[in-house]
């Protein structure tokens, strides 16, 4: 017997939407416009274009709702439309990343500064400058959020797109690979690099004077 699919948090809203309830559409807009904006900004740098693409996305949502079959979540469906809208406007350069930046585990550039590990001696390869715990109080500040946005913005495009979809929006690996047309290995390498970069940015920020 199959387990019941997880309930869509927007299930109640969907019922109203199918009934053509306009206040429900406004509610949907308010609930997910932030996520749509973030996803589009992962692809598009200029605010004016991003805003245009967001509107295009919502128009497609409005028109496409009757065709939504409810197999996944409404949010997932909306974000898929956002990604496809942004990608249609911004086709990816085929050779966006130098081959050396990809690599398998063996030939990729280290994601942690090699100077933080012992070069020789008994503890060769182990941390010489290990990470230190992050004080919880400093993690929930406006300054940290601003730093995080900046760090994400500074990522190379594909890394940013993977990070925003996977870690920013909780899409799964399969969905992200399909949306971005990436192989699972490539997606994982991009996520690995992006996460390490963003973590390092947080670490630097917390290491600066409070």
């Amino acid at each position, binding site marked *: 017997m199959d387990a019941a699919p997880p309930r869509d948090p927007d299930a109640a809203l969907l019922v109203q939407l199918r009934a*053509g309830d*306009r206040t429900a*559409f*406004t509610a949907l*807009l*308010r*609930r997910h*416009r*932030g*996520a749509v904006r*973030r996803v589009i900004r992962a692809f598009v740098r200029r605010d004016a274009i991003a805003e245009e693409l967001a*509107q295009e996305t*919502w*128009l497609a949502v*409005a*028109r496409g*709702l*009757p065709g939504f079959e409810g197999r996944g979540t409404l949010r997932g469906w909306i974000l898929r439309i956002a990604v496809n809208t942004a990608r249609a406007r911004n086709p990816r350069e085929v050779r966006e990343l130098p081959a050396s930046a990809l690599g398998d*585990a063996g030939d*990729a550039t*280290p*994601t*942690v500064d*090699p100077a933080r*590990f012992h070069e020789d001696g008994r503890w*060769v*390869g*182990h*941390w010489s400058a*290990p*990470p*230190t*715990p*992050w004080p919880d109080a400093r*993690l929930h500040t406006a300054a*940290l*959020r601003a730093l*995080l*946005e900046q760090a*994400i913005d500074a990522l190379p495009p594909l890394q940013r797109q993977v*990070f*925003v979809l*996977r*870690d*920013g*929006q*909780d899409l799964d*690996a399969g969905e992200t690979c399909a949306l971005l047309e990436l192989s699972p290995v490539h997606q*994982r390498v991009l*996520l*690995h690099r992006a*996460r*390490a970069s*963003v*973590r390092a940015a*947080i*670490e630097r920020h917390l290491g600066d004077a409070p």
Partner: protein
Amino acid sequence: MTLALPPELTCRDVVELVTRYDEDALAPADRAVFEAHLAACDACVLYYQQLRQTRTLARALDDARAPDDAPLDPAIERALLDAFPPRS
């Protein structure tokens, strides 16, 4: 496919394997070697936790904004509502 990792990993190895581990992309033997390192290395455990924290913080960026953040541009809202519900 197994990476056939050596029986003892260095921290430098671990920080490059951490995403494979998190994505459940390590073969059982490799995962065992990875976990054996974590069991003996607080620094690598902390590094791994901080990567997970990074994800949690990124996810929370959305939640930090109030749902009714900036007001919707009335013209835009009108245009969208005109498109909904779609005429059948």
